């Protein structure tokens, strides 16, 4: 088993997660990109689960990955559905235009 370079592999998944977070926070243009960033974060988490599942030799991690995949799929489906409905309504998906959620 490769035990010595788990940190190296973990770095990749954490970097991916951070990229997703930064895409979520710094993005000011497009809701589509937000959904893509969320997908990226979920993928990095999946990768993390897989790494640990192999590293710890435990099947539970892979089970979780399957669940997360389904959840991510449904979530992006619902998100995209909301997006299309919203686009129909407002004719835009720019984030700067969405500011009616102020209390």
């Amino acid at each position, binding site marked *: 088993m490769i035990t010595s370079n788990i940190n190296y592999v973990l770095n990749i998944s954490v970097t991916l997660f951070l990229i997703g*977070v930064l895409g*979520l*926070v*710094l*993005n*000011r243009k497009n809701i589509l990109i*937000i959904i893509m960033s969320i997908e990226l974060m979920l993928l990095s988490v999946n990768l993390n689960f897989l790494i640990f599942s192999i590293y710890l030799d435990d099947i539970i991690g892979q089970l979780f990955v399957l669940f997360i995949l389904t959840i991510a799929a449904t979530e992006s489906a619902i998100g995209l559905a909301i997006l299309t409905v919203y686009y129909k309504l407002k004719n835009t998906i720019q*984030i*700067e235009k*969405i*500011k*009616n*959620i*102020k*209390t």
Partner: protein
Amino acid sequence: MYLLIVFLPLLGFVYVSLFGRFIGPKGSSILTVNCLILSFLFSVCSFYEVALIGSNTYLKLAVWIDSESLNIDWGFLFDSLTVIMCCVVTFVSSLVHIYSTEYMAHDPHLARFMSYLSLFTFFMLILVTADNYVQMFVGWEGVGLCSYLLINFWFTRIQANKAAIKAMVVNRIGDFGLTLGILSIFINFKSVDYATIFALVPLFTGNQFNFLTLDFDIITTIGILLFVGAIGKSAQLGLHTWLPDAMEGPTPVSALIHAATMVTAGVFLLARSSPLYEYIPVVLDIITILGASTAFFAATVGLLQNDLKRVIAYSTCSQLGYMVFACGLSNYSVGVFHLVNHAFFKALLFLGAGSIIHAVADEQDMRKMGGLKRLVPFTYSVMVVGSLALIGFPFLTGFYSKDIILEAAYGNFTSKGHYSYLLGTFGAFLTAFYSTRLIYLTFLCKPNGFRTVICKAYDSSYQICFALGVLTIPSIFAGYYTKDMIIGLGTDFWGSSIFVLPENMNTIDSEFIKHIFKILPVMLSLLGVFTSFFVYTFSNATLFQLKISYIGKKFYNFFNKKWFFDKFYNEYLGQFLFNFGYTISYKTIDRGIFEIFGPMGLSNLISKKALHLKNFQTGYIYHYAFLILAASTLFLGLREFWFVFGNFVDYRIFLIFSIISFFLKQ
């Protein structure tokens, strides 16, 4: 019988104040007068039993406060000092009651008046019969309260209200000192009973106690604090300003306050605490000097007052000065003797003044009287008797006590003794001068009042004349007949009630002073009488010229305005305290600090900060996302690095932050 002395006046008060409107003014008068007269008769009986036969009486009624080492009982102690005070108080008070029934006959609130008078007497009796300091304090405060109620009797007059509040407040200053004195007695002696304290005093000489890191001599402190109480109640120099203003009440009230009750309480306290004061020569010096100064001060002020009652009020102040410095020179029995005699002739003077005022349609200004000798002959004669007794005319009451005071002062052969002798003798001259001035301006000179008033002047009848006539008898004879009993050489009248250290006794010394110093006060008094009489009879014009001259005006103003004591108190002390109350305690503390830190400031702070926090919600999704990221980073970071931060976080910093947050704007 002993309890009835005290509680009969209370009975009169309770019944008349509760049912006065049902039994009417006449009924209430009869009830209270009878209660007082009965009380007086019992006092005389107890005087016979206690003072003459010598069986002191102690009565324990009930436990009042019983808490760990603090034991206060409702107890009554009748010894010579108490019964002589009881006799004087009830005697003068009954006559004042009888007098008031006619003097106040046309007042719609006669029942209230009589009930207050009875309550006053009751509290005074509680004061003199108490066997511990706390119960004495009940009477002490009670007479203060009743003086307030009585001075304020005509409560629709603003001047009466002001005078009553002044009497109450100025008395409270002294009472505060007395309270502190009683507290320090309890702290050090663990008891407030007279018997316990006075037995322990010799053991405590020189002992000190620590207060705010300073060491104080125990009994010196106690003595000074008790004397502060006496200053307030007996109107000694410094807290005397309430006494002349107390003239705003009805005249019988003035008689009661000035003669038998209230102001005598201070002297009574000194005499009662004689076993304490005997061991503190420093305080005795202070008492002597203050008393002598008061005697002189009040005599000079009385010289140029134009209000009939005010002149008599200042003579009270002056005579109290004599009593106090007699006590300061360890002649407590002489002080009490003068107190008793003074009660008789001062009551006579005041009631006589009331009769005059009654005769001239409530006019109190002496300059608007005159010529009343033929119109109110009876009042004239009793006023002459009273004035002669006051100035110490030979063989009248005042002579016996005043002369012995001054002799004892000289016979003390110390500087304080000579100081008080000097001021007292000169005060005697001034007393004679202004008493004669009073008599002259009121009775002897040409009528100066309105014709309608003077024409209708007549002697009051029945009760007023009865009271005056009865008071005249002791004013003439009391001194002569009781001198040997009360202050005679080697008399055992006082028993154990007054204690004088052997080295402080000087009654025998005073017998051997030079003849000239013995005769001087009397000669000066007579000189004062004649000077005053001749000056006012023959040289009115010169007197007027003297008065309107530059220096004369200054003198006249200085004395007429009471040495500017009131001016000083009002403009500097009073103004300063009012300013302090407004700017510091009201504006800075109440409206300032308490508003900012108190509930108002807190609610303001929270709503203000909440407005700021609300601004975080901009409505842009990426702002929310950033906030979520930042907050989760913070929490995770704190959790990870708590072992580093935990050592350096000081909670006091948060306190400072929260205090600062009160003062931040925007």
